[in-house]
């Protein structure tokens, strides 16, 4: 082979080698940096409307209390009857189909039912005022649809407190209920708290003391299988010889990373005795939650705290004494939490207390009924970033604009109360007087019936 040929050969190899490295390198860099347009799949989802169904909401008729029978301290009897009212276009006189459910020969609950293809337009509320030596105060409840799962983050177990868990099954088949108690021991289903059968069309009441030992700040989770039930927690408290209040607590909004508790009303600033207590539970994961307390109309928190939460163990947070006014409390974490706030009017005599449950987010419209018996106000919290305009109609007509990050209080009269909101808000109706305190979250139509999104 001639020298020239060898030279050509060698330069060809050199060129090939360099070209190989260059092409390979260029392709490698292109792979990493080039914005290659790639197809992306999306799940096709169908919004399906359930067919016509029967909506039932349950209104409490009797205030059930423990230990009113001198011969049987463990017996649960009725301490009084609620005044029930309802509103909404869905249920006119002709369609009205109420049935009553009795507990121990007492009329315990009324069920309003309605068959509708659209989201049913039906709401109801009931209130009661008691002034017995062992039970005195004001309580209000909403008529609510049955649920599979209810959270009660407000159970008082102090000395003098009694509580009754009332379960009503408006369905067609028996429900099996189990109660999980979250305490310092973590989640426990106590003996006798599982497999509680609530027969179709019946109401059952269980003394809370039979479920909970001495734990001071438990959280209850009521789960129903077979058919959903309506659960409420009716409680009374006596300090020394003085009855200091009654309350009916209904299920909070579902466990979620953010819990908004609107309408916490402070009548008098208290020093010394605790007046505002928050109870928080991280359901599944350990959590550092932020608690912020806002006064109505203000954007800056009056109190702020972080709470270290252990999964399954409730935490009680005593807030500093608040000036009289309306407050909202926002608990935010990164995983599911439940929270409730306890507040007392705490004047010397004729006091009342209330547990304020977290309210769900309302996106469009909601229908509520304002009960009689105490002056009521609607507390609207806008936790979002855009101002929300809320149009009130029904028996109270008004338009309110709630700036982002604030809340507003609107006095409302008894009767029908319709809300139309431009942006997501949370709201509750607070009943407050010198000797009356209670708050009822406003639920949107979603909690009754909604569309179902089905994908593949």
């Amino acid at each position, binding site marked *: 082979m001639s020298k020239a040929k060898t030279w050509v050969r060698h330069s060809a190899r050199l060129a090939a080698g360099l070209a190989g490295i260059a092409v390979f390198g260029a392709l490698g860099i292109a*792979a990493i940096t080039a914005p290659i347009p790639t197809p992306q799949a999306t799940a096709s989802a169908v919004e399906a409307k359930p067919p016509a169904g029967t909506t039932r909401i349950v209104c409490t008729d009797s205030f059930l209390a423990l230990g009113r029978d001198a011969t049987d301290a463990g017996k649960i009897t009725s301490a009084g009857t609620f005044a029930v009212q309802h509103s909404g276009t869905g249920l006119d006189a002709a369609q009205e189909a109420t049935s009553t459910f009795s507990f121990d020969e007492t009329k315990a609950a009324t069920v309003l039912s309605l068959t509708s293809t659209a989201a049913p337009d039906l709401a109801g509320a009931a209130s009661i005022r008691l002034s017995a030596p062992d039970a005195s105060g004001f309580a209000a409840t909403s008529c609510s649809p049955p649920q599979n799962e209810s959270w009660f983050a407000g159970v008082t177990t102090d000395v003098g407190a009694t509580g009754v868990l009332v379960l009503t099954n408006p369905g067609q088949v028996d429900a099996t209920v189990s109660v999980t108690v979250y305490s310092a021991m973590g989640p426990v289903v106590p003996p006798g708290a599982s497999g509680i059968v609530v027969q179709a069309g019946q109401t059952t009441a269980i003394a809370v003391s039979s479920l909970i030992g001495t734990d001071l700040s438990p959280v209850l989770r009521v789960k129903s299988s077979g058919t959903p039930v309506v659960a409420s927690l009716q409680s009374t408290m006596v300090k020394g010889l003085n009855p200091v209040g009654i309350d009916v607590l209904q299920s909070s909004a579902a466990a979620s990373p953010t819990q908004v508790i609107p309408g916490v009303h402070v009548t008098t600033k208290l020093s010394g005795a605790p007046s505002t207590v928050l109870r928080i539970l991280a359901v599944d994961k350990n959590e550092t939650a932020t608690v912020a307390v806002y006064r109505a109309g203000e954007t800056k928190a009056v109190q702020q705290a972080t709470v270290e939460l252990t999964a399954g163990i409730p935490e009680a947070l005593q807030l500093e004494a608040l000036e009289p006014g309306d407050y909202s409390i926002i608990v935010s974490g990164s995983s599911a939490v439940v929270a409730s706030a306890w507040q007392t009017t705490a004047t010397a005599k004729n006091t009342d207390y209330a547990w304020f449950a977290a309210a769900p987010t309302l996106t469009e419209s909601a229908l509520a009924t304002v009960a009689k018996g105490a002056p009521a106000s609607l507390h609207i919290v806008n936790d979002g970033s855009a101002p929300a305009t809320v149009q009130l109609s029904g028996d109270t007509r008004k338009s309110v604009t709630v700036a982002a990050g604030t809340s507003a209080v609107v006095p409302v009269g008894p009767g029908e109360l319709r809300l139309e909101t431009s942006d997501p808000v949370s709201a509750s109706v607070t009943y407050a007087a010198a000797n009356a305190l209670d708050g009822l979250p406003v639920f949107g139509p979603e909690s009754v019936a909604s569309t179902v999104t089905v994908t593949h």
Partner: protein
Amino acid sequence: MPAANVHAIVVARPDARDLGYAHFRETLDALRAQTLPIAGLTVVLCGSDKRFATLANESGATTVLQMDPHTSYAVAVRQAAKRLDDESAVWLLAQDTTPAEDALKQLASQLDLGPSVMVVAPKLVRKNEQDVLASLGVSMTPGGRAVELGAGQFDQGQHDARTDVLGADVRGLLFRRGMHLDLLPDPALAGADEGLDIGVRAHLDAHRVVIAPKARVLVSGDGVAGMPEPKRGSDRRRIAYASRLAQLHRRLTYAPVLLVPLHILSFLPILLWRAVTALADKQPHRVLPEAGATIVAATRWPTLARSRSGLNRSRGGWVNVDSLRVTKAQRRTLLGNDTDDITNVRRDLHFFSGGGAWAVLASLAASVVMFPLLLGWPVLGGGGLLPMRGDLGQLWADAAFGLRGYGLGYVAPADPFAGVIAVLGSLSPVAPSLAIQMLWLLALPLATLGGWFAATRFTERSGLRLLGALAWTVAPTFMAALLDPRPAAVLAHLVLPWLVYVGVVAHRSWGYAGTASILLAVLTACAPSLGAIIIAFALVGLLVAMLSRRFTGAGRLLWTVIPTLAVFAPLAWRQFRESNLVAVLADPGAAYQGARASTDMQGSIGLLMGDATGSSWGWPNFLSWLGVGGDIVTALTPFIFVLAAPILLLALASGFTKRFFVTLSLLVGAGVFGVAAVAAARTSLAVFNGEPVSVWPGSLWAAGWLALVGAALVTLDELARPAAVRRGLAAVAALALGLSAVPSVTAVMRGEHGLTNGPTSTLPAYVAATLQDGEGGATLVLTMLEDGSIAQRIVWGASDTLGAQSTVLATRQGIDTEDTQIANVVADLVTPESSAPITLDSLGIRFVLVEPVVGSAGVAATTREQAVSALTQRAGLQTVGETGKGALWQVEAKPVPRTDAASASKATIIAIGTALVLLIAFLVALPTRGSVRAARTRPRGVGLKGGDE
């Protein structure tokens, strides 16, 4: 001397060959130089050409006939012979038959043997190799097949003692004067077997055909008389057509009249059989011409009648013919006598002596270490693994067009992967799922075996082949696919090296092309995204072959992609009609996202290093398990990929070797696969439970890795001296590769894997038991998602299965009527307030299953609670209860069976079409004695001396 009156007929065809003119002139010169001069000469020019005409006119020819270019030799000769008087003997010649000086004398002398000698044939030798016989007498088998008695042999006088033959090549035949015109070549034979036919006719008339071995005629194979020398593809096709037509025509001509219809009836089955054998003989070019010949032979009855009438007066003389036929034993010697000399350039494989076998054994041992528990598990599950159908019928039904295993009434083509699964499951017919387990146990040794064979294409050195086998076995994406697990990716990894082994030489032979075509179809079925790119590469190769005018090679390359295209055609057509053609590339099998590398720059770099799961080859977890502190692990993790550096650097250096044509294509290929892998990781085509599922980039990356390893092997292979450097580099690369796989090999022991023991069914045992008892019906499975929506799937049969998965369903976009229908049913079912009557039975649904959700709180848990209570309250549903796989209800009414009569014919057509293409591919792939011998004449490696790349 009576024989002196010989009239020669020379037929010339100006457009036959480039050298035709020279041949013609030599032939005419040789005629003039005969020691026994011819009495007359007729030149027949088929086609007009000035030079030929001048030559003919100057040749002193008695007559020059100008004829149409399409005139056959037989017609030309007959036309010429008509003009002769009966007193002349006739000598048949063509432009390319150059008789020796004494040829005519020798021929004519044979006529003197006796009046029964009607035809005398010369000894034909090749003009370019004058010691090789072109023809020396033709006979036929008892079945009528023509047999050359000496063609292709070296002429050592071994046949010179022969006198009487049945027939001879038509070129150079001398006919006694006064012979009947019918004895001249029969135009119906299309040019083949003319001399044999003449011989048969002569013998039937009680004449003789005699060989004159001393009369030598040099022939060139221009194809003017007889068959051309097979230089081009068109020559081969012409030979195939003409010889088949001639054979069939002779069969019909010689047969008694009553048997003719029976013969015609037999043509179709014989045609099919010959197509099969042609394919198995790696002569696919024979199939179409023979089919044409069969049709022609069976239909031209007037021609047949004419040929038969020429024979009718002398049908009694078969005894004369039979005595000269070849016996079976003679025929075997004649046909089996392959005189092509074989230069065996291929060295022995050295699979055993080179350590390949030991590597496979070692790999098997590693497999036992890696999967210690698998043997005890009845069914393998987890990740993308699902059970298989329990019986073969259902297994294969899933692979056919028709109702899919999901949905209410989706009629769609099956994924080709379902066919692969069906074949795999059929290997273990009693318990098809067992095949998956075996696959997992044998995956490592099979990968080693494949990697070793692929490496033989790049190096002859045993040590380097072992390095290649190791690199392929420990490829990180393979490990990820085994541990995740992802069955389609594992299969693709096992098939790919074999495709490389045969694919890079597919243009050399039909056997390789056939094998490659099947392997490519299997690979594409397992990893369509990878298959698409390989098809693109094959088409580039095809283009290159076409441009360099290697049409046979191009044809073979074209065939390699045809079975794949055929197998995918129904699916592609369906997706095209859905305006979602790209979804053909979706991964088959269970749509499973699993752990993936992120799609940002860091993740992409990791992916280019083969880290498709974003786990840094499992090293961080492995180091933590060893007890190394978290900070050190974090600091070390980016440097893990250094272990791939030796191979990468060696591959990059491969362009400097003298086999750079090969290595440059390997580097470009690796780069393209890398880009494709990153793009694939960012592409999602399928949806499962409302979440998009990205394309698995591991198979694409593995193809790039194979190219890199090949390039690195070439670098080392070419690094001839010093040997110590080569061995050292190879050892470093091997060590780094071995080390890189330690976390993966120990992953199962450490419990870091997605493999699970079972389940035998993804549905509750109650469902499986009920549906296995032969009861029909589907299960509506609802999965509650964290965004509050509900994912539905309707499962037919006792479990979700691998084969039942359908990419048509998984990639469907938009909402069709069935989606809406099911959504309404689901909405109705999960709404507690609903009281509409249950319609599930009319849809064929027997069970409703609500799958468990993770976590006890949250939107999904709430939705589930609501759904469970709604279903429990529902009249018409019987609660079975909570099972380990979810809450179950049974529909009380008997479900309506699902039927689909309309698609049955479509399914049959598709199945037959696919089977036919695959059958052809298998026949072409089947190794035969001839194909094995032909393969030995080429070196095994690519880019080596003697190769043609």
